[in-house]
């Protein structure tokens, strides 16, 4: 498991390929307790069953018990009691578990927790006071609210990447998230408000 080409993937903690290869016998390669160490110095070991890793969530390093197969979503919800990201679909097609991993939006139910060691993770809970949820509240862009934290994260990513988006671009660019109550008509003006910098009002 220590072949150099696999090590190369593990610069930021853990190699997905190494995991996939090692997972045949319900075991996996993981770097444990490796937070802050350079990849080359990290000890690589085969683990199965429960192991403790450190995830940096919303700026705070926290220890969490996971299995190699534990998804980031399960680690957040059961390990850290951060339940804003929701289990809605099996494959990320609802966008309900959207969080940021390494600054990029990801469906937390399609990412393994051990893949996220060493990468900053951001969840909707960190957005208290942020203009995006404020604009959602202002436009009443939530009903039951179950999809909303994931939608808020998707919008946060969208407005960061497209600060000058038009309404047509909003309608094109935010189709990865599903809302059953039908709050889209309120989300569109909420996003426009955020882009205008009026979301705090």
């Amino acid at each position: 498991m220590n072949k150099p080409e696999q090590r190369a993937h593990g610069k930021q903690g853990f190699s997905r390929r190494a995991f996939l290869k090692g997972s045949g016998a319900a075991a996996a390669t993981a770097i444990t307790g490796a937070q802050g160490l350079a990849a080359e110095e990290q000890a690589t070991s085969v683990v199965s069953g429960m192991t403790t890793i450190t995830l940096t969530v919303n700026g705070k390093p926290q220890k969490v018990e996971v299995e190699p197969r534990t998804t980031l979503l399960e680690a957040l919800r059961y390990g850290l009691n951060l339940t804003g990201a929701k289990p809605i679909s099996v494959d990320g097609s609802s966008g309900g578990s959207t969080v940021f991993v390494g600054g990029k939006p990801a469906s937390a139910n399609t990412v393994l927790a051990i893949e996220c060691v060493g990468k900053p993770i951001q969840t909707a809970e960190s957005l208290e006071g942020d203009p995006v949820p404020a604009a959602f509240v202002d436009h009443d862009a939530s009903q039951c609210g179950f999809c909303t934290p994931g939608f808020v994260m998707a919008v946060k990513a969208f407005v960061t990447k497209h600060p000058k988006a038009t309404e047509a671009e909003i309608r094109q660019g935010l189709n990865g998230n599903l809302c059953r109550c039908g709050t889209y008509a309120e989300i569109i003006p909420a996003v426009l408000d955020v882009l205008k910098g009026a979301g705090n009002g």
Partner: protein
Amino acid sequence: MVEYVWPDKKDVSVLGGRHDKVDGAAKCTGTAKYSYDINPDKVLIARVLGCPLAHSKLKSLDLGPAENVKGVVAARAMKNVGDEIQWQGDPVAVVVGQTEGAVAEGLAAIKADYEALDVFVDDENVEAAESAGRAEKAGGKVQLAKEPKGDDPDFEEKEIERLFREAAAVVEGRYGIQAITHMCLEPHGSTCDWKDGKLTAHLSTQNVSGTAGQFASPLKITADDVTVHCDYIGGGFGSKFAVDRWDSMAATLSKELGRPVKLMLDRDLELKNAGSRPSGFVDVKVGANSEGVITIWDSHHWTAGGFGGGGVNQSVVPYVIVPPNYRRRVTNVKINAAPARAWRAPNHPQGCALSQTAIDDVAAKLGMNSYDVFLRNLANVADKDRAAVYAEEMKIAEGLMDWKSKWHPHGKGPKNGSIVSGLGMAIHTWGGGGHPSSCLVKIHPDGGVEAFLASQDLGTGTRTVIAVVLAETLGLPVGAIKVNIGNSKYPTSGPSGGSTTVGGVSESSRRTGLDALAKLFEKVGQKLGVASDALVAKNGRIADKNNPQKSLSWNDACSLLGMTPLEVQGRGAPGRNSKLSGSGVAGVQMAEVDVDRETGVVKMKKMVAVQDMGLVVNRKTAESQIYGALVMGIAYALFEERIMDRKSGAFLNAEIADYRLPRLGDIGQLVVEIYEPDSERARGVVGLGEPPVISPGAAISNAVANALGVRVPILPMTPKRVLDTLKTRSA
């Protein structure tokens, strides 16, 4: 004597204003805790194994291999060997374990054998259902304006024949609307916590007050030892009124294992088991006079509400517009699918889609403007009191849609390449009277105010509605009222279904607030030397209305209570004599679409909804209900349906990636107008959740028919159905 009325429009402070949801920030930043999110210490995870076959018999079940999986704590059967199973996904067993991974491995290890039995799921085909023995007559009604002379046994047939013969236009059609599922984004389930002979059930429910007893009996305890808790529910839409088998299983497992157990359905099992809306199909023949007014209606509709029958009730066909002569018959078709559950406005969306498409076809046949035909048919609106409201709302909708300038006769619009556009409309009705509700109001000596109701918030903003009503009543800002709902130990409030909640909780909180205020006024009156009935509470002060100088701040007034809070419990009294709430609404919707004749894709351009709802409590959340209903309507008009394999009965699209629903880019422009003249306001609060979801199916279907010049007969109007229609019925 306290008079239970709303303040005059000129006197209101917060009632009817635009208020943010008091729990909006919690919902948007993920701190709101749903049943799925409750993680008591040492919680175990339970998941269900669904039967992979539809109609079948369980031949053997071996849970041993599951129990041997590391991390699995227990496995239990939910069916006995020999049991007949009627639909795919019916729960067969449950596995409890330490982690999701262990439970998934345990479920995969279960060894079960089934014997496949004959399957019928072809609800569209009534002839096939009849020959398969799956069809059952489910009543009907005949109404003819003319009395039979003597006792002619053939009068009915002859009279109907005569009416069709004398009609200026006759249209015939077979229309339909497929079954859809509730697709609650938070699936059904609960986190059950048994401790010291008592159960706390964190249940995803629309019925906080009514579910404790359902948990109790299988556990051999009484309802007083059960607390049902639900602060937030991730969608219900009519499917979450009861404690389901899997909820009772979670409670039993918690009792047995001595640890909390969380059992939520997986997405596919959620769609297969936990709620669908019945399909409906109709053969209809309609006759109209030269003005387009329907004179005779003759229909046979069939409907499938899953296994166990039931479905679209006979009373909703024809829908709202009920001609003087009609004959309607219903057949229930029994299919191998889970029993249907109430879906937002039960019966009405299907009734509207099956009926008002036929009315629009009359307009097409006569070459008339659909608007004029609907307007003339208002003469036959079943609820005569509402006929004038429909006419007013049509006028407003026409303006918002710019109907007059956009209108063209069916199939005769300009073509933009392969794109044609069209307009359609429909009208609807609903009751929406408030449900029974009790409310406890506590006013603390330091001025704090709390309300307690065992109600729930489905996303309509129940907490906010209660806060607005009490704020208005006590003369305080909305944020000053702390609203506690979602716990069965609070005073009983009805289940949230049928648009009854806002009427119900507004009634109970207004009455209780007024009662509490009257008690506080007695103390303030003594202090100020003013008759208590001369006092008013406004802007955080209690003052003599004849001499506003004589007043106390809210906090000073409350300090007169001494050491203990003032507690008042009251009950709403909805019904004919109530001035606080009413029932019965109209509602008009118009749709504008683009249809691509080459690809079959229907694109929403614009929808207009004009809706009455009596007195508005919170305009912002009320509008949201209408926007949301339009999106759900667009969903069943164009996108969503349960797709079942005819041979195996397999539910083919029971995952989110396969079950098409509209996304943000699919909705076009939505325009919402609440119709609230003084006459409406005087009716008190009327429920709003259901009505605006009714018309979209018919309105959008009529718009597509107007664009193409032919009717796409079945909803949802997928590209395939549009192209098939164009192939078989050239315009």
